């Protein structure tokens, strides 16, 4: 891990490995596969409580039923706040267009009806944010077999993980942290 500020540690693979989502190949499978829903912060849970009705016209009927039954957010087996799932499969806020799995939350944001863009954990994936001791935050690279095409496309385009996630990294941690990550990546050792 490399310290990029007094609070943030970054795993080396975020600086060196390549990544660019390839929706044409993966079809948004990360919204379908997995053991539980997308991790949510407390603030995001509050957003979902007030905003979710605005997503209904885009959501699947089964997704609407899942939210009505489980609530706009739920707890997984580890007690973490996550988005509800449709019968243990895709996220309740997922919908399908032309065989691609897309996000109703993001769609509503793009249409200007919701101020909430999407859960940070989805936006910043494949980075996973981990709270460490003494208020430290660890940024880890989650290397999932389902994202092999993203690694290939990233390598082809020479886009590293942190470069692909420039916008959410700046949104979450600020421009200074992003610059520090870039500097660490460009000046190894």
């Amino acid at each position, binding site marked *: 891990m490399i310290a990029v500020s007094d609070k943030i540690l970054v795993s080396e693979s975020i600086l060196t490995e390549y990544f660019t989502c390839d929706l044409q190949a993966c079809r948004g499978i990360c919204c379908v596969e997995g053991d539980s829903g997308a991790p949510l912060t407390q603030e995001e849970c509050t957003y979902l409580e*007030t905003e979710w*009705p*605005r997503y*209904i*016209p*885009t*959501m699947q*009927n089964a997704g*609407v039923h899942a939210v009505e039954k489980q609530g706009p957010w739920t707890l997984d087996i580890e007690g973490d706040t996550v988005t509800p799932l449709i019968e243990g499969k895709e996220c309740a806020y997922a919908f399908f267009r032309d065989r691609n799995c897309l996000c109703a939350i993001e769609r*509503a944001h793009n*249409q*200007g*009806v*919701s101020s909430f863009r999407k859960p940070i954990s989805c936006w910043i994936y494949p980075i996973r944010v981990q709270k460490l001791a003494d208020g430290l935050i660890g940024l880890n690279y989650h290397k999932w077999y389902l994202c092999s095409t993203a690694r290939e496309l990233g390598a082809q385009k020479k886009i590293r993980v942190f470069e692909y996630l420039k916008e959410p990294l700046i949104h979450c941690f600020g421009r200074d942290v992003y610059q520090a990550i870039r500097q660490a990546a460009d000046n190894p050792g």
Partner: protein
Amino acid sequence: MKKILLFALILTGLASCKQAADVPQIDLTLSKALKGNATLNEFVTQAKDNANTLARECVNLHEMAQEYLEVDFDSLSTEEQEKIVSLDYKYVEMWYNFNVKYTSQTIQLLEFLKDESIPKEELIDMSKAMAQVNSFVQELKDTYGQDLKLDPHPAPAQ
């Protein structure tokens, strides 16, 4: 005369009933909350009526097009070719007219979704009703398509 007229009316009625039964229609049961909001009630009802009208038009035009679906266009007489082109045009026009309505309906829906003065319960019920209408329209698109492609040499759009 009266008896004959009555008989004719019954026959007409049955014929239209048979036709109506073949047309897919969407029927929405509006919640109490939605019924209580005149604007949303009217909006949803209008969207449902537009979708049902489209369904009727789709079925009618599709029936008219059946006999032309498998024909060799170039071997037909000019008169028959003109019939097909005219039918193709009607089909494109039907979807165009609906899409114009659908776009303005979508813009209005987004305005309602942004409106924070609408109570949550009404917003949820309206959204659910519109989701049903949208899914019904999508089924019509999947079943009847937006283009019959009867005319193999369509004129480029002006």
